[in-house]
């Protein structure tokens, strides 16, 4: 095991070489016998320091730079937080820049978990996340860059690291009351997920190029970041500019020379609208890995037709069970047999059960709530024992999580059939409709708000907000819509701002139970 005492400040080249040699030998042992993410990534920094670890927006980061710079950030964090508890998280703010990865690894090497926060997140929401997480140190891309520039020669690795049951990262997701909730993922949780992915997907070492589509604050990105980095491969992020400019996106994808595609199905559907998106522009692509939302058989069939050299994998799992819990390779036979595609078989060391409303297991093929149990299940929500007690429990000695998803098992093959509540997935983003409604209702002049998702075929899905307001300024509907979109965008991420606003007078239609009649609302719009 690599102990902290093996690392010393490198005062000269000889000493540095000696320490690298020690690290190299230790890493080989660890690589063979243990699943330790940080040490595996360090190993590539020593073994092949010039190999590209990450490309983003025209910049490249090598494994050697990742090793040294994350060590420098770790040393900085240790200085700053020396009198704090080791579990106090460090907030890392950015989008998909290499500095984010340096910050993540630096935080963990210093003994602290990280909280990724996207730079597009409105300030009000960022403040809520920082407050809830208890983070006292926030590092943005500029700060990380400044630290690594000024301390580049100070490549000493830290003497602390996190234990197997300590938090590795805390990821904030939409909460039904309008406040985001932090899902704690431990080192064991993450290692369980990553080792499964690497083993099942048989990623080659130092030969793969992974696509990173999801922002680093979204748990889908964990599916590309860590399986890529522990195998010494190259991660290519597409930027905001790429996504907002179809011409640029096309060029970036073509230039990346990808071998592994990780994205939401919506993103692939978007790319498929371009008829030249086929094998010819990605000749080395051998695998599509999908997670985050439903993969339709239509999308899978088109992909198999256009990329006949590539495998397609569908996976399923909530953030609370570390990215993905089940997987299946989608073939023509699977599409023919199951027009509504399955989401896979459980990963090793994980069980999936279907429970009825009384928490009793259901037999095969019966529809009920999906329960996940295993070493990938999070210990709970940070600082929210009430929410944790509601959703997390034990089956035997293993932690278990009530997903709130509906589904059934057929010969241990899982089928997902939507949510049991008002949580939705829009283009891969997990959203509590109550989160948007609560934030809308805090805006001036709004009496009540209800939000629904209009479902078409995946790419055409969008949110509609129904508003009962005072309209004291006698604005037109367009002006009211524009004002609300701008105000809401200051409170919630852009993907949570509804596309359409419908203004109503009086009150919403109600069901006999006194709840908002969302079906009637849905029927009232074209």
């Amino acid at each position, binding site marked *: 095991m690599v102990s902290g005492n093996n690392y010393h400040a490198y005062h000269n080249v000889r000493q540095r070489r000696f320490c690298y040699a020690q690290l190299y030998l230790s890493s080989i042992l660890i690589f063979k016998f243990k699943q330790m993410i940080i040490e595996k990534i360090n190993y590539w920094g020593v073994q092949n320091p010039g190999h590209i670890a990450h490309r983003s927006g025209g910049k490249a980061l090598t494994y050697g730079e990742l090793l040294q710079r994350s060590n420098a950030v770790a040393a900085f964090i240790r200085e700053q937080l020396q009198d704090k508890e080791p579990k106090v998280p460090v907030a890392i703010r950015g989008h998909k820049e290499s500095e984010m990865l340096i910050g993540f690894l630096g935080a963990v090497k210093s003994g602290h978990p990280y909280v990724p926060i996207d730079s597009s997140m409105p300030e009000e929401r960022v403040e809520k996340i920082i407050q809830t997480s208890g983070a006292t140190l926030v590092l943005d891309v500029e700060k990380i860059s400044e630290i690594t520039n000024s301390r580049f020669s100070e490549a000493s690795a830290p003497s602390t690291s996190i234990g197997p049951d300590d938090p590795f990262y805390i990821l904030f997701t939409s909460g039904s009351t309008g406040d985001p909730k932090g899902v704690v993922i431990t080192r064991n949780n993450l290692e369980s997920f990553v080792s499964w992915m690497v083993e099942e997907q048989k990623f080659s070492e130092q030969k793969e190029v992974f696509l990173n589509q999801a922002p680093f604050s979204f748990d889908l990105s964990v599916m590309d970041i860590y399986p890529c980095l522990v195998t010494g491969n190259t991660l290519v992020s597409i930027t905001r500019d790429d996504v907002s400019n179809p011409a640029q996106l096309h060029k970036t994808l073509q230039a990346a020379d990808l071998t592994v595609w990780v994205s939401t199905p919506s993103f692939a559907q978007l790319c498929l609208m371009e008829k030249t998106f086929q094998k010819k522009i990605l000749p080395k692509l051998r695998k599509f890995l999908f997670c985050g939302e439903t993969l339709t058989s239509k999308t899978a069939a088109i992909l198999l037709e256009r990329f006949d050299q590539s495998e397609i994998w569908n996976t399923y799992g909530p953030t609370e069970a570390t990215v993905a819990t089940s997987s299946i390779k989608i073939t023509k036979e699977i599409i023919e047999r199951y027009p509504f595609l399955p989401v896979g078989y459980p990963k090793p060391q994980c069980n999936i059960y279907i429970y009825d409303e009384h928490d009793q297991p259901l037999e095969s093929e019966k529809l009920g709530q999906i329960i996940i149990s295993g070493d990938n299940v999070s210990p709970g929500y940070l600082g929210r024992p009430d929410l944790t007690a509601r959703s997390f429990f034990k089956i035997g000695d293993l932690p278990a999580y009530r997903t709130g998803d509906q589904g059934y098992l057929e010969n241990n093959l899982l089928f997902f059939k939507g949510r049991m509540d008002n949580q939705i997935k829009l*283009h891969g983003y997990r959203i509590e409709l109550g989160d948007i409604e609560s934030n809308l209702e805090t805006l001036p002049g709004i009496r009540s708000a209800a939000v629904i998702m209009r479902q078409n075929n995946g790419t055409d899905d969008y949110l509609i907000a129904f508003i009962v307001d005072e309209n004291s300024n006698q604005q037109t509907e367009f002006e009211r819509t524009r004002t609300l979109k701008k105000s809401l965008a200051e409170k919630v991420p852009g993907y949570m701002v509804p596309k359409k606003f419908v203004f109503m007078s009086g009150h919403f239609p109600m069901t006999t139970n006194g709840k908002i009649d969302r079906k009637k609302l849905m029927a009232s719009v074209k």
Partner: protein
Amino acid sequence: MSNSQEQSAIQEKVLGILEEITGTGEIRNNLDLSLFDEYVLDSLGLVQLIVSLSETFAIKIAPAEVERDQWSSPRKIIENVEKRVAQK
């Protein structure tokens, strides 16, 4: 059909498609409306618009050729489509 009649028919069809995708009739009131800055159209909507215009007018607009700035207002979109229809 005269040139001006044809242009007017194209304009009407483009605005109809744009209205359906953006969900607002405001695009008819202000042809210089900044679609992206005013939260009317997003990147996904832009791709949907391109696909829909390509099918409606039987013109080739590959998303890979589209520069966002050239499609940022109803007027620019109409001009773009008119030019491509004339080149058919």
